[in-house]
């Protein structure tokens, strides 16, 4: 993944295929009542005093922190960097009496109370989207997968869409929103769907076609940059990657690393086998996605090609079995093991949150325990 070299933002930078990068949006809250607290700039200020692994950036609100990794291709190195940056953030947060956690949404925060980060772009977003911008205080994991060229990126993007429900269900960690159990495993995703440019990418398979499409959108004044597209999977020409954006931020970095490795293994198999992709892949897309958000791993998945339906957990299990033949399978095995435990009964983070809520029967208590889990305890 090379940085942007020319002045053309739509030129697809070449990057080594199947490299990975992970971004995690984290929640920051106070220890008093476990509500979100606007402390991102103080936290970043403190973290940046010393050299550290990973990258730490402000996001749309002051109560959100984004951490990201460098470029990886192996599970152990990716996980090690995630753990290291997590430890850095937690140590700094302790000094400021701030709790940090994953989770797709804050369980009881009311959107009207969020403060928007003091940066021109964020103020623009806020002015444009009104209440949506504040409701957009949701926290996701973004997985970047490196692609050799733009055509590969688009092919991979559409072929991967069949697996989008896997990622939603495995990462789901936002069952509670504004103080109630939403009945969804991932309520975060519904917040994103409210945006005009959310959803899926148009079915084009060649980069020059995509450019034309994008230029037309831009000419109409619909978008200014790729950043304005909140698609489930979007190309990121600047990095030479596709970016999977459907995951809630998991409660532990181990899960985050496992999801990234799963994406890499799927991409590797898809690019090696090159199964044909038609627009039919999107026929059951909305249905599958809804099931994954609503029911998590217990949801149902319809395969557009084989026209079979089965529980998402079962579909993930079957997919993991086929990935065993992957040449990098031994290295990735610890990541696959994490996912197997989840589908084998341990459940996703939404399941953990619902059972943990029963201990204290208070949402602030749940938030506190989420922060403990993020630390690597509980």
């Amino acid at each position, binding site marked *: 993944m090379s940085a942007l070299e020319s002045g053309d933002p739509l030129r697809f930078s070449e990057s080594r295929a199947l490299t990975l990068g992970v971004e995690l949006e984290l929640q920051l809250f*106070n*220890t*008093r*009542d*476990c*509500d979100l*607290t*606007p*402390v991102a700039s*103080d936290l970043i*200020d*403190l973290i940046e005093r010393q050299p550290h692994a990973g990258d730490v950036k402000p996001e749309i609100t*002051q109560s959100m922190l984004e951490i990201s990794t460098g470029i990886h291709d192996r599970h152990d190195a990716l996980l090690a960097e995630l753990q290291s940056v997590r430890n850095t953030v937690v140590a*700094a947060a*302790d*000094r*400021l*009496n701030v709790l940090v956690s994953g989770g797709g949404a804050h369980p009881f925060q009311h959107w009207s*109370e*969020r*403060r*928007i980060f*003091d940066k021109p772009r964020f103020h623009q977003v806020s002015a444009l989207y009104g209440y949506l911008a504040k409701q957009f205080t949701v926290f996701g994991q973004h997985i970047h997968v490196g692609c050799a060229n733009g055509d590969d990126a688009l092919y991979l993007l559409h072929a991967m869409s069949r697996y989008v429900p896997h990622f939603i269900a495995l990462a789901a960690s936002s069952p509670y929103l504004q103080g109630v159990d939403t009945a969804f495993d991932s309520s975060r995703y519904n917040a994103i769907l409210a945006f005009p440019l959310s959803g899926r990418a148009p079915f084009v398979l060649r980069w020059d076609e995509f450019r034309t499409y994008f230029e037309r959108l831009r000419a109409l004044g619909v978008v200014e940059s790729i950043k304005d597209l909140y698609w489930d999977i979007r190309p990121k020409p600047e990095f030479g990657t596709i970016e999977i954006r459907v995951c809630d931020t998991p409660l532990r970095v181990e899960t985050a690393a496992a999801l990234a490795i799963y994406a890499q293994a799927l991409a590797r198999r898809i690019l090696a086998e090159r199964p044909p992709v038609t627009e039919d892949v999107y026929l059951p897309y909305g249905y599958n996605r809804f099931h994954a958000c609503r029911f998590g791993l217990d949801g149902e998945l319809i395969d557009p090609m084989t026209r079979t339906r089965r529980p998402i957990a079962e579909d993930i299990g079957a997919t993991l079995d086929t990935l065993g033949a992957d040449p990098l399978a031994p290295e990735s095995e610890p990541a696959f093991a994490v996912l197997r435990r989840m589908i084998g009964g341990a459940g996703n983070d939404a399941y953990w949150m619902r059972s943990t809520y029963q*201990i*204290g*029967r*208070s949402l*602030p*208590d749940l938030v*506190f325990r989420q922060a403990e889990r993020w630390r690597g305890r509980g």
Partner: protein
Amino acid sequence: MDTLFFLPSWPPHVGSLTMAALVLLAALVAGEIVQRVFKLPRLIGWVIAGAFYGPSATGLLDAEALHDLQFIMHVAAGLVLFEFGQRIDLGWLRRNPWLAGTSVLEATLAFVAVFLILLLLRVSPPVAAFAAAIAMATSPATVMTLARDLRASGQVTQRVELLTALDCAYAFITIGVLLAWFHAEYHGDWVVMAAHPLYLIFGSSMLAILAATIARPLLMRLDAYGDVQRVCAFALVLVAVALGEWLNLSSALVLLGFGASLRALDDRRRFVSLDFGPLGQIFLVLLFALSAAALDLSIALAGAITGIALVAARYAGKYVGVVLTSRVSGLSTRKGSLVALGLMPMSAVALVFVHETVTVFPELARGLLSVLVPALVVLEMAGPLLARFAFVRAGESAALA
């Protein structure tokens, strides 16, 4: 005349509770006017309304009535300190020991600066020492009211709250020590001097922990019934205030400790949103208004220079203490200076507790008031404005964002 017995008597007899209600009404109206018309914090209106009623203004509320209403101020101060204690996370001191350093340094410097400037202005050493001890403290009632009204949350707010709680504890302990010293001067009894502060500190902490231990299971069981839980907590606070007074402990330390211990014992975070609701609001408004009513404004004018000098010295001490240690405690110097501003509020509420203990020595009490009242008059107005400026400038107010 007797034939018209059913007609009301004239002039009407106004009982002290009725007076309190009238003060409450005036304060609420003034608070809204001050907030909506002048965009100032409500509590400034409460204070102005109270002062208007007081003996040194219209005298609608005379010294006798004020004396009758003392219990309301005690209850109200107890409620405020309990709630404030609940907001304090002493575990933070363990995770960031530099904050303890900040609080000790900032309080000590404020004490020293005020003490010295008063000596320079020819105030007698005992009076200067007591005034300096009281000046170490920041008004928890003011800080909490502002933080709640602004829905402020963030580093500056949290640090101001923590330092305010610690400063109050230091102030009450120092006053205890000074009293003991004063006793010793008069009676030459050094055992008393050593024993009194120890009794104050240990007795108050023990009572606080005991109260929290009893309160926790009780409040837990009333969890699902918000209002019942609230009223129960209210009653517990009243009992704790009464016990503290009976045992000659510092009620302020007891209630602050009660709140903080209850929070520390709350391992399932069941009481995080425990407050006294409208009930608490009634007492809070009365606390500000009645304590302002008690201020003798004629002293304020006479001692204006001393008052301003005290305020300046106090600010200098706190500013240097907080700013010197802000970077090592993990905060930028800019935000550190905002924390120092947030520590400025001082209110006549401070006198509610001190007054009684000190009145044993009338001369001391008179001297103390002549020094403190002018400073309080300045800070009742300027304190909330400075603190609000600090919270808003730090970007921590949700209400004004």
